[in-house]
Protein backbone atom coordinates (compact mmCIF):
# COMPACT_ATOMS: atom_id res chain seq x y z
CA UNK A 1 0.00 0.00 0.00
CA UNK A 2 1.81 3.14 -1.22
CA UNK A 3 0.39 6.19 0.46
CA UNK A 4 1.09 9.87 -0.03
CA UNK A 5 2.50 11.88 2.86
CA UNK A 6 -0.89 13.53 3.34
CA UNK A 7 -2.79 10.23 3.39
CA UNK A 8 -0.27 8.76 5.80
CA UNK A 9 -0.70 11.57 8.30
CA UNK A 10 -4.50 11.59 8.15
CA UNK A 11 -4.78 7.80 8.31
CA UNK A 12 -2.49 7.55 11.34
CA UNK A 13 -4.62 10.11 13.16
CA UNK A 14 -7.71 8.26 11.99
CA UNK A 15 -6.41 5.00 13.54
CA UNK A 16 -6.33 3.42 10.07
CA UNK A 17 -3.65 1.13 8.66
CA UNK A 18 -0.64 2.71 6.96
CA UNK A 19 2.57 1.58 5.25
CA UNK A 20 4.50 3.52 7.89
CA UNK A 21 4.00 6.40 10.29
CA UNK A 22 5.36 9.79 9.08
CA UNK A 23 8.91 10.52 10.21
CA UNK A 24 8.80 13.85 12.03
CA UNK A 25 11.02 15.54 14.56
CA UNK A 26 10.41 18.63 16.70
CA UNK A 27 13.64 20.56 16.06
CA UNK A 28 16.96 21.54 17.61
CA UNK A 29 18.52 24.11 19.93
CA UNK A 30 21.06 26.43 18.33
CA UNK A 31 23.75 25.02 20.63
CA UNK A 32 22.89 21.51 19.43
CA UNK A 33 23.44 22.51 15.81
CA UNK A 34 26.75 24.20 16.77
CA UNK A 35 27.88 21.00 18.48
CA UNK A 36 26.81 18.81 15.58
CA UNK A 37 28.74 21.02 13.16
CA UNK A 38 31.85 20.02 15.10
CA UNK A 39 30.77 16.38 15.04
CA UNK A 40 29.99 15.84 11.37
CA UNK A 41 26.87 17.79 10.36
CA UNK A 42 27.88 19.80 7.24
CA UNK A 43 28.36 23.49 8.06
CA UNK A 44 25.95 24.64 5.36
CA UNK A 45 23.10 22.68 6.99
CA UNK A 46 21.94 25.20 9.57
CA UNK A 47 18.21 25.75 9.89
CA UNK A 48 15.77 23.19 11.30
CA UNK A 49 14.15 22.53 7.92
CA UNK A 50 17.60 22.17 6.27
CA UNK A 51 18.51 19.56 8.87
CA UNK A 52 15.23 17.73 8.36
CA UNK A 53 15.79 17.49 4.62
CA UNK A 54 19.44 16.52 5.04
CA UNK A 55 18.54 13.76 7.49
CA UNK A 56 15.59 12.47 5.48
CA UNK A 57 12.84 13.67 7.82
CA UNK A 58 9.41 14.80 6.62
CA UNK A 59 8.66 17.46 9.25
CA UNK A 60 7.67 19.10 11.46
CA UNK A 61 9.42 22.31 10.40
CA UNK A 62 9.28 21.46 6.72
CA UNK A 63 5.57 20.66 6.63
CA UNK A 64 3.73 23.25 4.58
CA UNK A 65 1.92 25.93 6.59
CA UNK A 66 -0.80 28.20 5.22
CA UNK A 67 0.99 31.56 4.80
CA UNK A 68 -1.39 33.75 6.80
CA UNK A 69 -0.59 35.97 9.79
CA UNK A 70 -2.58 34.88 12.83
CA UNK A 71 -1.15 36.88 15.69
CA UNK A 72 0.15 40.37 16.29
CA UNK A 73 0.34 42.12 12.93
CA UNK A 74 2.28 43.89 11.59
CA UNK A 75 5.30 42.35 13.28
CA UNK A 76 6.76 44.84 15.77
CA UNK A 77 10.29 46.07 15.23
CA UNK A 78 12.78 45.09 17.92
CA UNK A 79 15.51 47.49 18.92
CA UNK A 80 18.61 46.55 20.89
CA UNK A 81 18.94 49.24 23.55
CA UNK A 82 22.13 48.10 25.18
CA UNK A 83 24.74 45.35 24.83
CA UNK A 84 26.40 44.11 27.99
CA UNK A 85 28.76 41.11 28.01
CA UNK A 86 26.67 38.22 26.68
CA UNK A 87 23.35 40.04 27.09
CA UNK A 88 21.25 42.32 24.97
CA UNK A 89 18.57 44.60 26.38
CA UNK A 90 15.88 44.69 23.73
CA UNK A 91 12.83 46.93 23.25
CA UNK A 92 10.23 44.57 21.80
CA UNK A 93 8.37 47.22 19.80
CA UNK A 94 5.24 46.75 21.89
CA UNK A 95 6.32 48.68 24.98
CA UNK A 96 8.16 45.85 26.66
CA UNK A 97 11.86 45.44 27.37
CA UNK A 98 13.53 42.07 27.67
CA UNK A 99 16.98 40.63 28.16
CA UNK A 100 18.23 38.21 25.54
CA UNK A 101 21.26 35.98 26.04
CA UNK A 102 23.38 36.29 22.91
CA UNK A 103 24.90 32.84 22.84
CA UNK A 104 22.31 30.69 24.61
CA UNK A 105 18.88 29.64 23.33
CA UNK A 106 16.52 30.42 26.16
CA UNK A 107 13.32 32.29 26.82
CA UNK A 108 13.50 36.10 26.80
CA UNK A 109 13.54 37.54 30.30
CA UNK A 110 11.21 40.52 30.51
CA UNK A 111 12.17 43.36 32.79
CA UNK A 112 9.14 45.34 31.60
CA UNK A 113 6.16 43.57 30.09
CA UNK A 114 4.26 45.29 27.27
CA UNK A 115 0.90 45.03 29.08
CA UNK A 116 0.69 46.18 32.66
CA UNK A 117 -2.73 47.82 32.51
CA UNK A 118 -5.88 48.05 30.43
CA UNK A 119 -4.47 51.21 28.82
CA UNK A 120 -1.49 49.20 27.56
CA UNK A 121 -3.88 46.60 26.18
CA UNK A 122 -5.93 49.25 24.35
CA UNK A 123 -2.69 50.30 22.65
CA UNK A 124 -1.87 46.77 21.53
CA UNK A 125 -5.41 45.57 20.75
CA UNK A 126 -5.51 47.05 17.19
CA UNK A 127 -2.59 44.76 16.30
CA UNK A 128 -5.04 41.84 16.61
CA UNK A 129 -7.39 43.35 14.03
CA UNK A 130 -8.18 40.61 11.47
CA UNK A 131 -8.82 43.19 8.73
CA UNK A 132 -5.33 44.69 8.72
CA UNK A 133 -3.93 44.35 5.20
CA UNK A 134 -1.18 41.81 4.80
CA UNK A 135 -2.58 39.07 7.03
CA UNK A 136 -3.59 37.18 3.91
CA UNK A 137 -1.14 37.36 0.99
CA UNK A 138 -2.16 39.48 -1.99
CA UNK A 139 -1.54 36.53 -4.31
CA UNK A 140 -4.11 34.47 -2.42
CA UNK A 141 -5.70 33.06 -5.57
CA UNK A 142 -2.34 31.68 -6.70
CA UNK A 143 -1.83 30.07 -3.30
CA UNK A 144 -5.27 28.50 -3.44
CA UNK A 145 -4.38 27.01 -6.82
CA UNK A 146 -1.07 25.65 -5.53
CA UNK A 147 -2.79 23.80 -2.68
CA UNK A 148 -5.39 22.13 -4.92
CA UNK A 149 -4.88 18.39 -5.54
CA UNK A 150 -1.79 18.30 -3.35
CA UNK A 151 -0.33 15.09 -1.91
CA UNK A 152 1.31 16.70 1.10
CA UNK A 153 -0.31 17.81 4.37
CA UNK A 154 -1.12 21.41 5.20
CA UNK A 155 -1.11 22.98 8.64
CA UNK A 156 -2.74 26.20 9.75
CA UNK A 157 -1.62 28.01 12.88
CA UNK A 158 -4.68 29.19 14.80
CA UNK A 159 -3.23 31.10 17.73
CA UNK A 160 -2.96 31.01 21.48
CA UNK A 161 -5.52 32.05 24.07
CA UNK A 162 -3.32 32.01 27.17
CA UNK A 163 0.30 31.79 25.94
CA UNK A 164 0.26 35.06 24.01
CA UNK A 165 -1.35 37.01 26.84
CA UNK A 166 1.04 35.47 29.36
CA UNK A 167 3.96 36.57 27.17
CA UNK A 168 2.56 40.09 26.96
CA UNK A 169 1.71 40.41 30.66
CA UNK A 170 3.88 37.99 32.59
CA UNK A 171 2.54 35.02 34.51
CA UNK A 172 1.99 36.98 37.72
CA UNK A 173 0.03 39.86 36.19
CA UNK A 174 -2.19 37.61 34.12
CA UNK A 175 -2.82 35.23 37.03
CA UNK A 176 -4.02 38.11 39.19
CA UNK A 177 -6.11 39.52 36.32
CA UNK A 178 -8.06 36.24 36.12
CA UNK A 179 -9.27 36.86 39.68
CA UNK A 180 -9.39 40.66 39.88
CA UNK A 181 -10.26 41.71 36.32
CA UNK A 182 -11.98 38.70 34.72
CA UNK A 183 -13.94 40.83 32.23
CA UNK A 184 -10.68 42.22 30.91
CA UNK A 185 -9.19 38.75 30.46
CA UNK A 186 -12.37 37.72 28.64
CA UNK A 187 -12.14 40.75 26.39
CA UNK A 188 -8.53 39.99 25.50
CA UNK A 189 -9.31 36.34 24.77
CA UNK A 190 -12.37 37.32 22.72
CA UNK A 191 -10.16 39.61 20.65
CA UNK A 192 -7.88 36.68 19.84
CA UNK A 193 -10.84 34.40 19.07
CA UNK A 194 -12.24 37.05 16.75
CA UNK A 195 -8.93 37.26 14.90
CA UNK A 196 -8.56 33.50 14.58
CA UNK A 197 -12.14 32.83 13.49
CA UNK A 198 -12.15 35.69 10.96
CA UNK A 199 -8.97 34.39 9.29
CA UNK A 200 -10.18 30.79 9.39
CA UNK A 201 -13.46 31.66 7.69
CA UNK A 202 -11.55 33.20 4.79
CA UNK A 203 -8.92 30.48 4.51
CA UNK A 204 -11.15 27.44 4.91
CA UNK A 205 -13.59 28.71 2.29
CA UNK A 206 -10.84 28.25 -0.30
CA UNK A 207 -8.41 25.62 1.02
CA UNK A 208 -8.67 22.12 2.48
CA UNK A 209 -6.46 22.20 5.54
CA UNK A 210 -5.40 18.99 7.32
CA UNK A 211 -4.16 20.10 10.72
CA UNK A 212 -4.81 23.14 12.95
CA UNK A 213 -2.18 24.12 15.48
CA UNK A 214 -2.49 26.04 18.76
CA UNK A 215 0.52 27.11 20.81
CA UNK A 216 0.02 27.54 24.54
CA UNK A 217 3.00 26.39 26.65
CA UNK A 218 0.91 26.84 29.77
CA UNK A 219 2.26 24.08 31.99
CA UNK A 220 5.48 23.34 33.82
CA UNK A 221 6.87 20.40 35.77
CA UNK A 222 4.17 20.52 38.48
CA UNK A 223 1.19 21.21 36.26
CA UNK A 224 -0.70 23.99 34.52
CA UNK A 225 0.17 27.65 35.13
CA UNK A 226 -3.55 28.37 35.17
CA UNK A 227 -5.87 26.36 37.40
CA UNK A 228 -8.00 23.86 35.44
CA UNK A 229 -11.09 25.54 36.91
CA UNK A 230 -10.18 28.87 35.28
CA UNK A 231 -9.00 27.08 32.13
CA UNK A 232 -12.41 25.44 31.75
CA UNK A 233 -14.32 28.63 32.49
CA UNK A 234 -12.34 31.09 30.37
CA UNK A 235 -10.70 29.05 27.65
CA UNK A 236 -12.73 25.94 26.78
CA UNK A 237 -15.78 27.85 25.43
CA UNK A 238 -13.52 30.14 23.42
CA UNK A 239 -11.52 27.30 21.90
CA UNK A 240 -14.88 25.84 20.83
CA UNK A 241 -15.67 28.93 18.77
CA UNK A 242 -12.50 28.25 16.79
CA UNK A 243 -12.77 24.46 16.59
CA UNK A 244 -16.44 24.63 15.50
CA UNK A 245 -15.29 26.37 12.33
CA UNK A 246 -12.44 23.91 11.88
CA UNK A 247 -14.76 20.93 12.28
CA UNK A 248 -17.33 22.46 9.88
CA UNK A 249 -14.58 22.41 7.26
CA UNK A 250 -13.36 18.91 8.04
CA UNK A 251 -10.24 19.88 10.00
CA UNK A 252 -10.36 17.20 12.64
CA UNK A 253 -6.76 17.14 13.84
CA UNK A 254 -6.30 20.08 16.20
CA UNK A 255 -2.89 20.13 17.87
CA UNK A 256 -1.94 22.01 21.01
CA UNK A 257 1.75 22.59 21.63
CA UNK A 258 2.19 22.66 25.39
CA UNK A 259 5.24 21.54 27.35
CA UNK A 260 5.20 20.31 30.94
CA UNK A 261 2.75 18.24 32.97
CA UNK A 262 -0.43 18.74 30.95
CA UNK A 263 -2.67 15.97 32.33
CA UNK A 264 -5.04 18.25 34.29
CA UNK A 265 -5.82 20.18 31.08
CA UNK A 266 -6.38 17.34 28.64
CA UNK A 267 -10.07 16.71 29.39
CA UNK A 268 -10.78 20.43 28.86
CA UNK A 269 -8.92 20.50 25.59
CA UNK A 270 -10.78 17.43 24.35
CA UNK A 271 -14.11 18.98 25.35
CA UNK A 272 -13.04 22.06 23.40
CA UNK A 273 -12.27 20.06 20.26
CA UNK A 274 -8.50 20.34 20.66
CA UNK A 275 -7.56 16.69 20.32
CA UNK A 276 -3.84 16.24 19.63
CA UNK A 277 -1.34 16.68 22.46
CA UNK A 278 2.24 17.68 21.60
CA UNK A 279 5.13 17.27 22.53
CA UNK A 280 4.39 14.98 25.52
CA UNK A 281 7.50 15.66 27.61
CA UNK A 282 8.38 12.19 28.83
CA UNK A 283 9.58 13.39 32.21
CA UNK A 284 6.04 14.53 33.03
CA UNK A 285 3.58 12.93 30.62
CA UNK A 286 2.88 9.25 30.06
CA UNK A 287 1.15 8.87 26.68
CA UNK A 288 -0.19 5.45 27.69
CA UNK A 289 -1.88 7.04 30.69
CA UNK A 290 -3.58 9.59 28.43
CA UNK A 291 -4.67 6.93 25.94
CA UNK A 292 -6.00 4.73 28.71
CA UNK A 293 -7.97 7.59 30.22
CA UNK A 294 -9.28 9.21 27.05
CA UNK A 295 -9.17 6.36 24.53
CA UNK A 296 -9.05 7.20 20.84
CA UNK A 297 -10.44 10.68 21.47
CA UNK A 298 -6.89 11.78 22.20
CA UNK A 299 -4.28 11.95 19.46
CA UNK A 300 -0.64 12.04 20.48
CA UNK A 301 2.54 13.44 19.00
CA UNK A 302 6.05 13.53 20.49
CA UNK A 303 6.85 11.52 23.61
CA UNK A 304 10.36 10.17 22.81
CA UNK A 305 12.40 10.90 25.91
CA UNK A 306 15.25 13.22 24.94
CA UNK A 307 17.27 11.89 27.89
CA UNK A 308 17.57 8.52 26.12
CA UNK A 309 19.34 10.25 23.24
CA UNK A 310 21.80 11.78 25.69
CA UNK A 311 22.67 8.36 27.11
CA UNK A 312 23.31 6.22 24.02
CA UNK A 313 22.31 3.30 21.85
CA UNK A 314 20.87 0.91 24.43
CA UNK A 315 18.76 3.64 25.98
CA UNK A 316 17.50 4.68 22.54
CA UNK A 317 16.56 1.07 21.68
CA UNK A 318 14.72 0.73 24.98
CA UNK A 319 12.89 4.02 24.52
CA UNK A 320 11.62 3.07 21.06
CA UNK A 321 10.59 -0.33 22.38
CA UNK A 322 8.61 1.41 25.16
CA UNK A 323 6.59 3.28 22.56
CA UNK A 324 6.02 0.37 20.14
CA UNK A 325 2.50 -0.64 21.33
CA UNK A 326 1.36 2.98 21.03
CA UNK A 327 2.84 3.28 17.54
CA UNK A 328 1.07 0.09 16.47
CA UNK A 329 -2.24 1.20 17.95
CA UNK A 330 -2.33 4.36 15.82
CA UNK A 331 -3.28 7.95 16.59
CA UNK A 332 0.35 8.56 17.50
CA UNK A 333 3.30 10.15 15.71
CA UNK A 334 6.59 9.92 17.61
CA UNK A 335 9.10 12.75 17.83
CA UNK A 336 11.64 13.69 20.48
CA UNK A 337 9.69 15.29 23.33
CA UNK A 338 11.12 18.78 22.76
CA UNK A 339 13.87 20.36 20.71
CA UNK A 340 16.94 18.12 20.80
CA UNK A 341 19.24 19.56 23.50
CA UNK A 342 23.00 20.07 23.09
CA UNK A 343 23.83 17.16 25.38
CA UNK A 344 22.90 14.83 22.53
CA UNK A 345 25.96 13.82 20.44
CA UNK A 346 25.43 13.87 16.69
CA UNK A 347 26.32 10.17 16.47
CA UNK A 348 23.57 9.33 18.99
CA UNK A 349 21.06 11.29 16.94
CA UNK A 350 22.11 9.58 13.73
CA UNK A 351 21.75 6.23 15.49
CA UNK A 352 18.32 7.26 16.79
CA UNK A 353 17.14 8.26 13.30
CA UNK A 354 18.45 5.03 11.76
CA UNK A 355 16.72 2.89 14.37
CA UNK A 356 13.61 5.02 14.22
CA UNK A 357 13.33 4.66 10.45
CA UNK A 358 13.49 0.85 10.76
CA UNK A 359 11.07 0.98 13.68
CA UNK A 360 8.52 3.08 11.77
CA UNK A 361 8.66 0.68 8.83
CA UNK A 362 8.29 -2.40 11.03
CA UNK A 363 5.67 -1.20 13.52
CA UNK A 364 2.60 0.69 12.38
CA UNK A 365 -1.16 0.53 12.63
Amino acid at each position, binding site marked *: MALTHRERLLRVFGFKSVDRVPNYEFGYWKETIDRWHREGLPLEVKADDDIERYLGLEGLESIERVPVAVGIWPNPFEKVLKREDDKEFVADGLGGIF*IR*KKYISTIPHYIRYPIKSREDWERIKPLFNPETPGRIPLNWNDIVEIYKNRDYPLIIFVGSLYGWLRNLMG*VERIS*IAFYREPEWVEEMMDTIVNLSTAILRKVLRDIDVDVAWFWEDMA*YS*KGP*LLSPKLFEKFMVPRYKKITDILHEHGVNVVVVDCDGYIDPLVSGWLEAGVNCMFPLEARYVDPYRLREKFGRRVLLMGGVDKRALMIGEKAIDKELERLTPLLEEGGYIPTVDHRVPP*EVPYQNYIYYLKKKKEWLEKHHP
Partner: protein
Amino acid sequence: MVLDDIKESLVGLDMDKVLDLVKRAVDEGYRPVDIVNSLADGMKIIGEGYERGELFLSEIIMASEIFKEAMNILEPLVLKEEGVLKPIGRVVVGTVEGDLHDIGKNLFTMFLKSMGFDVIDLGVDVSVENFVDAVKQYRPDIVGMSALLTTTVVNMEKVIKALEEAGLRSYVKVIVGGAAVSKEYAIEIGADAGGIDAYEGALICRKWMEEKQKISVK
Protein backbone atom coordinates in the same frame (compact mmCIF):
# COMPACT_ATOMS: atom_id res chain seq x y z
CA MET B 1 -14.54 34.37 64.45
CA VAL B 2 -12.85 37.02 62.37
CA LEU B 3 -9.41 35.37 62.39
CA ASP B 4 -10.87 32.13 61.04
CA ASP B 5 -12.77 34.13 58.42
CA ILE B 6 -9.52 35.79 57.33
CA LYS B 7 -7.91 32.40 56.88
CA GLU B 8 -10.92 30.99 55.00
CA SER B 9 -11.21 34.04 52.75
CA LEU B 10 -7.53 33.83 51.87
CA VAL B 11 -7.97 30.16 50.94
CA GLY B 12 -11.02 31.24 48.87
CA LEU B 13 -8.76 33.82 47.12
CA ASP B 14 -11.18 36.67 47.92
CA MET B 15 -8.91 39.68 48.21
CA ASP B 16 -11.59 42.27 48.97
CA LYS B 17 -13.01 40.16 51.77
CA VAL B 18 -9.59 39.44 53.29
CA LEU B 19 -8.65 43.11 53.33
CA ASP B 20 -12.02 44.12 54.82
CA LEU B 21 -11.69 41.46 57.50
CA VAL B 22 -8.12 42.44 58.31
CA LYS B 23 -9.21 46.06 58.78
CA ARG B 24 -12.16 44.90 60.91
CA ALA B 25 -9.91 42.71 63.05
CA VAL B 26 -7.57 45.66 63.62
CA ASP B 27 -10.53 47.88 64.56
CA GLU B 28 -11.84 45.24 66.95
CA GLY B 29 -8.50 45.19 68.74
CA TYR B 30 -7.01 41.90 67.63
CA ARG B 31 -3.24 41.81 68.00
CA PRO B 32 -1.62 42.41 64.57
CA VAL B 33 0.66 39.42 65.16
CA ASP B 34 -2.38 37.16 65.59
CA ILE B 35 -3.89 38.50 62.36
CA VAL B 36 -0.59 37.79 60.57
CA ASN B 37 -0.67 34.26 61.96
CA SER B 38 -4.18 33.68 60.60
CA LEU B 39 -2.95 34.78 57.16
CA ALA B 40 0.04 32.46 57.52
CA ASP B 41 -2.35 29.60 58.40
CA GLY B 42 -4.24 30.34 55.19
CA MET B 43 -1.03 30.28 53.19
CA LYS B 44 -0.15 26.96 54.81
CA ILE B 45 -3.42 25.47 53.52
CA ILE B 46 -2.63 26.90 50.07
CA GLY B 47 0.89 25.43 50.18
CA GLU B 48 -0.39 22.02 51.19
CA GLY B 49 -2.96 22.11 48.38
CA TYR B 50 -0.18 22.92 45.94
CA GLU B 51 1.96 20.09 47.28
CA ARG B 52 -0.93 17.63 46.83
CA GLY B 53 -1.36 18.83 43.24
CA GLU B 54 -4.82 20.26 43.97
CA LEU B 55 -3.87 23.91 43.58
CA PHE B 56 -2.00 25.48 40.71
CA LEU B 57 0.36 28.35 40.03
CA SER B 58 -2.34 30.96 39.35
CA GLU B 59 -3.89 30.19 42.75
CA ILE B 60 -0.56 30.45 44.56
CA ILE B 61 0.17 33.78 42.87
CA MET B 62 -3.25 35.17 43.83
CA ALA B 63 -2.96 33.97 47.43
CA SER B 64 0.50 35.54 47.69
CA GLU B 65 -0.82 38.80 46.29
CA ILE B 66 -3.57 38.86 48.92
CA PHE B 67 -1.01 38.05 51.61
CA LYS B 68 1.21 40.89 50.39
CA GLU B 69 -1.66 43.40 50.37
CA ALA B 70 -2.77 42.37 53.84
CA MET B 71 0.79 42.65 55.12
CA ASN B 72 0.96 46.21 53.77
CA ILE B 73 -1.77 47.01 56.30
CA LEU B 74 -0.34 44.91 59.11
CA GLU B 75 3.42 45.49 58.94
CA PRO B 76 3.39 49.04 60.34
CA LEU B 77 1.05 47.90 63.12
CA VAL B 78 3.26 44.95 64.04
CA LEU B 79 6.28 47.25 64.08
CA LYS B 80 4.43 49.71 66.29
CA GLU B 81 3.28 47.03 68.71
CA GLU B 82 6.27 44.70 68.81
CA GLY B 83 8.95 47.31 68.16
CA VAL B 84 10.55 45.09 65.56
CA LEU B 85 9.39 42.86 62.73
CA LYS B 86 11.86 40.04 63.04
CA PRO B 87 11.98 37.60 60.15
CA ILE B 88 12.48 33.94 61.00
CA GLY B 89 15.53 33.88 58.78
CA ARG B 90 17.09 35.29 55.64
CA VAL B 91 17.34 33.52 52.30
CA VAL B 92 19.23 34.60 49.19
CA VAL B 93 17.58 33.12 46.10
CA GLY B 94 18.35 33.18 42.39
CA THR B 95 18.22 31.28 39.13
CA VAL B 96 21.73 30.25 38.14
CA GLU B 97 23.78 31.70 35.31
CA GLY B 98 22.57 31.00 31.79
CA ASP B 99 19.02 30.27 32.92
CA LEU B 100 16.21 32.79 32.61
CA HIS B 101 13.40 30.64 34.01
CA ASP B 102 11.92 31.95 37.21
CA ILE B 103 8.60 30.23 37.95
CA GLY B 104 10.09 27.80 40.47
CA LYS B 105 12.21 30.45 42.14
CA ASN B 106 9.28 32.85 42.42
CA LEU B 107 7.04 30.18 43.90
CA PHE B 108 9.69 29.28 46.45
CA THR B 109 10.05 32.98 47.30
CA MET B 110 6.29 33.39 47.78
CA PHE B 111 6.13 30.47 50.21
CA LEU B 112 9.22 31.67 52.10
CA LYS B 113 7.75 35.16 52.52
CA SER B 114 4.45 33.75 53.74
CA MET B 115 6.38 31.83 56.40
CA GLY B 116 8.06 35.01 57.62
CA PHE B 117 11.44 34.84 55.86
CA ASP B 118 13.32 37.86 54.63
CA VAL B 119 14.06 36.98 51.01
CA ILE B 120 16.77 38.59 48.91
CA ASP B 121 15.84 37.75 45.33
CA LEU B 122 18.84 38.08 43.02
CA GLY B 123 16.68 37.37 39.96
CA VAL B 124 17.64 35.18 37.02
CA ASP B 125 20.92 34.44 35.23
CA VAL B 126 22.84 35.04 38.46
CA SER B 127 26.59 34.50 38.15
CA VAL B 128 28.66 32.50 40.62
CA GLU B 129 30.36 35.73 41.74
CA ASN B 130 27.02 37.44 42.38
CA PHE B 131 25.84 34.58 44.60
CA VAL B 132 29.08 34.75 46.60
CA ASP B 133 28.94 38.55 46.85
CA ALA B 134 25.32 38.39 48.02
CA VAL B 135 26.24 35.92 50.75
CA LYS B 136 29.02 38.26 51.90
CA GLN B 137 26.74 41.29 51.78
CA TYR B 138 23.47 39.96 53.21
CA ARG B 139 24.80 37.20 55.47
CA PRO B 140 21.82 34.91 54.82
CA ASP B 141 21.01 31.73 56.70
CA ILE B 142 20.17 29.93 53.48
CA VAL B 143 21.06 30.12 49.79
CA GLY B 144 18.43 28.85 47.33
CA MET B 145 19.32 28.18 43.71
CA SER B 146 17.05 27.23 40.83
CA ALA B 147 17.71 25.84 37.34
CA LEU B 148 15.39 24.43 34.73
CA LEU B 149 17.86 23.53 32.02
CA THR B 150 20.16 20.53 32.04
CA THR B 151 22.81 22.81 30.55
CA THR B 152 22.69 25.30 33.45
CA VAL B 153 22.17 22.99 36.41
CA VAL B 154 25.96 22.46 36.57
CA ASN B 155 26.35 26.08 37.70
CA MET B 156 24.81 25.17 41.06
CA GLU B 157 27.84 23.05 41.88
CA LYS B 158 30.12 25.94 40.87
CA VAL B 159 28.35 28.24 43.34
CA ILE B 160 28.70 25.70 46.15
CA LYS B 161 32.41 25.27 45.38
CA ALA B 162 32.89 29.05 45.27
CA LEU B 163 31.18 29.39 48.65
CA GLU B 164 33.57 26.76 50.02
CA GLU B 165 36.58 28.54 48.56
CA ALA B 166 35.42 31.84 50.05
CA GLY B 167 35.08 30.17 53.45
CA LEU B 168 31.33 30.88 53.52
CA ARG B 169 29.83 27.43 53.00
CA SER B 170 29.71 26.47 56.68
CA TYR B 171 27.66 29.58 57.50
CA VAL B 172 24.82 28.85 55.10
CA LYS B 173 22.51 26.01 54.24
CA VAL B 174 22.14 25.44 50.50
CA ILE B 175 18.92 24.30 48.88
CA VAL B 176 18.60 23.67 45.14
CA GLY B 177 15.55 23.15 42.95
CA GLY B 178 14.11 23.17 39.47
CA ALA B 179 12.97 20.66 36.90
CA ALA B 180 16.53 19.51 36.16
CA VAL B 181 17.43 18.79 39.81
CA SER B 182 16.86 15.45 41.51
CA LYS B 183 17.35 14.68 45.21
CA GLU B 184 20.37 12.56 44.27
CA TYR B 185 21.89 15.34 42.21
CA ALA B 186 21.42 17.82 45.06
CA ILE B 187 23.38 15.56 47.41
CA GLU B 188 26.00 14.79 44.75
CA ILE B 189 26.87 18.48 44.29
CA GLY B 190 27.06 19.13 48.02
CA ALA B 191 23.74 20.92 48.65
CA ASP B 192 21.92 20.36 51.95
CA ALA B 193 18.58 19.71 50.28
CA GLY B 194 16.99 19.75 46.84
CA GLY B 195 14.96 17.99 44.19
CA ILE B 196 11.70 18.83 45.94
CA ASP B 197 8.83 21.17 45.17
CA ALA B 198 8.74 24.82 46.16
CA TYR B 199 6.49 24.41 49.21
CA GLU B 200 8.40 21.43 50.59
CA GLY B 201 11.60 23.42 50.07
CA ALA B 202 10.22 26.32 52.08
CA LEU B 203 9.15 23.92 54.86
CA ILE B 204 12.70 22.55 55.00
CA CYS B 205 14.07 26.09 55.29
CA ARG B 206 11.71 26.74 58.19
CA LYS B 207 12.81 23.50 59.86
CA TRP B 208 16.45 24.55 59.51
CA MET B 209 15.67 27.86 61.20
CA GLU B 210 13.85 26.10 64.04
CA GLU B 211 16.85 23.81 64.55
CA LYS B 212 19.22 26.79 64.45
CA GLN B 213 17.13 28.58 67.05
CA LYS B 214 17.18 25.53 69.33
CA ILE B 215 20.97 25.38 69.10
CA SER B 216 21.35 29.08 69.84
CA VAL B 217 18.98 28.79 72.86
CA LYS B 218 21.08 25.93 74.23
